[in-house]
């Protein structure tokens, strides 16, 4: 239960971090380390080098934009929970953050790390997909001939970023720099449910629904699948007729096991039902 040997780098700036990650194919970025730590201890992950990106100013930044807020990847779950950062929604982010694992984990774990880890049962990937968030990725353009290596950025929707269980669109030497969460209208509602055997454990079924008629957004995301999230961009047909979720689950291949099918169906129904009482802005 001790990690295999690895080296550690605390980079002075972002280009140094990206260079180190690009030069050593065995290197892994370290943010809060709450998912990577257990994997290191169990020796399931054996990186040659950990590049500590969690303290870089770019990854700790918060930028308010007219239509969205950009959060650096290393903003912790606890910071969302405590309202230490602004919220572009009527309180949805704090509500989700409060349900992630345990406080001792939330104090260290980060939003960008959660996305990069891409655990299907994690809270952020499903929540952020439902909120229509974009992931901002950064990498180096080239390694040679530059004193200050230029960085290259790209943005993509969360549901495109996560390609499977623990699999993402991150390229070699590329890291998650931030997450851009669009502002919801003040009247927006959010329904969220997950089913865990024990509080803080990995979820077995999960659903997030965003109901924001002022912006014309009715998005539903099903998480804790065995692969990537199932995102329904216009879920009005489900909101009008809840029985339609059976069909959606069947099409997504999530109906094979009767017990898990029933659980998923119940969780989705509860998430939709929760739109009514819970998310009316105070």
């Amino acid at each position, binding site marked *: *239960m*001790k*990690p*295999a*040997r*690895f*080296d*550690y780098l*605390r980079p002075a700036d972002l280009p140094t971090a990206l260079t180190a990650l690009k030069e050593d194919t065995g290197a*892994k970025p*370290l943010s809060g*380390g*709450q998912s*990577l*730590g*257990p*994997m*290191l*201890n*169990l*020796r*399931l*992950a*054996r*990186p040659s080098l*950990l590049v*500590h990106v*969690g303290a870089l100013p770019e990854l700790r930044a918060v930028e308010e934009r007219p239509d969205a807020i950009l959060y650096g990847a290393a903003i912790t779950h*606890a*910071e969302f929970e*405590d309202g*230490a950062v602004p919220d572009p929604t009527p309180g949805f982010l704090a509500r989700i953050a409060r349900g992630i*694992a*345990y*406080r*001792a*984990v939330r*104090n*260290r774990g980060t939003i960008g790390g959660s996305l990069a*880890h*891409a655990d*299907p*049962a994690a809270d952020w990937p499903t929540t952020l997909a439902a909120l229509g968030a974009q992931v901002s990725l950064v990498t180096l353009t080239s390694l040679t001939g530059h004193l200050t290596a230029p960085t290259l950025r790209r943005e993509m929707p969360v549901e495109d970023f996560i*390609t*499977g*269980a*623990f*699999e993402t669109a991150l390229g070699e030497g590329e890291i998650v720099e931030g997450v851009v969460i669009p502002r919801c209208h003040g009247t927006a509602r959010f329904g969220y449910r997950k089913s865990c055997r*024990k*509080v*803080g454990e*990995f979820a*077995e079924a999960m659903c997030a629904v965003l109901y924001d008629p002022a912006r014309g957004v009715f998005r539903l995301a099903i998480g804790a699948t*065995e*692969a*990537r999230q199932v995102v329904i961009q216009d879920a009005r047909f489900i909101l009008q007729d809840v029985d339609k979720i059976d069909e959606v689950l069947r099409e997504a291949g999530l109906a094979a096991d009767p017990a*898990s099918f029933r659980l998923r169906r119940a969780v989705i129904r509860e998430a939709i039902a929760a739109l009514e009482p819970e998310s009316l802005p105070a």
Partner: protein
Amino acid sequence: MNAVTHALSIEVNGRPIEAEVEPRQSLADFLREDLLLTGTHLGCEHGVCGACTILIDGAPARSCIAFPVALEGAKITTIEGLIDDPVMVELRAAFTREHALQCGFCTPGMLVMARDIVLRRPGLDTDAIRHELAGNLCRCTGYVGIIKAIQSVAAERAGEAPLVTRGTLVAPPLYASPLTLPVPPTSRIGIIEPQKAPAAAPEDAAFTIEPLRNPIEIVQEFDVGAPRATVWALFQDPARVIACLPGASLSEPSDGRSLKAEMRVKLGPMQAAFGGVGQISADPSTWSGAIDGRGVDARSATRVQARLVYRLEEKSENGTHVCVDVAYVLQGPLAQMSRGAIARDLAARLTGAFAANLDGAVKGGVLAPQAAPLDAGSLVLSLLKGWLARLFGRG
């Protein structure tokens, strides 16, 4: 490979510490082994049980999955450093009064977490306390005494303003007994080079088939466009069967009855390379057979035991219906981390890829000499889905 150490400046219980640490050393081990602060207990060592909870810059964290090398300049407070903390004084009295501990193993973590709960959310009711305390496991008390103790302290503080503990300073003990002060780290007695474990070659003993206990089962049926005899012949050739399994290869030539094989699996940051032995049996009269095997991933010590049963049905002159039942049991770290459903998904995709490769092999298609390790990425998945859709005429 020599262990690289890094210089570290850190503050523990109010005392500055200069140390040289190896990157892989956990904070819990650093506190216990180097500073002799053994009040921090280690239970699961992968962030689940909460016994090792300490304060980093005032906020609770798991010390078993934190690395001191990444905590330059941080202020660490252990249970020893909270001896005079006014909230801790109340909590200790309450724990004694309510009989909130029995063996005491979880208690340091419980107290550190309890302090955070009553400060951050004063006046909490028992349900909410249970929720907040879910990350700390106790195997003796049934939690009743612990919850009562925390609730009594929380109730006393009901009127106080909530305090976010992140970034707060914890005052060091007023009088520190020598036992509660960190001992400066002793210079290391050199690095002990790890002894190379003897290459795993335990499988020379005769392989006996053992029944699988609570296996995960996957059934896959598909059609292959070739006569039954051709498909049957392929199944009798271990080298060709193994070549159809992504990431798998024979480690030595097979005699047709037993086989030694290796298999690489990748799931995100997790990688495993299973080496193992198997036994082949076939019953030509029923066009069916079985391959039994077991293997070990030498890196994580994850064990796998599997049984593959196949049955060939004649569909037409040039078509064979293949039924493959795979049952397997995964034990050890990989099973712990990857959880049932994801392992099942991966196994189902492996079986699917096996079917696709088999179809290609029967039709005389050329397979890559060494099938690439199955990457759980979307590419493989989409390829497979496309293939399955074509196969079942839905595409």
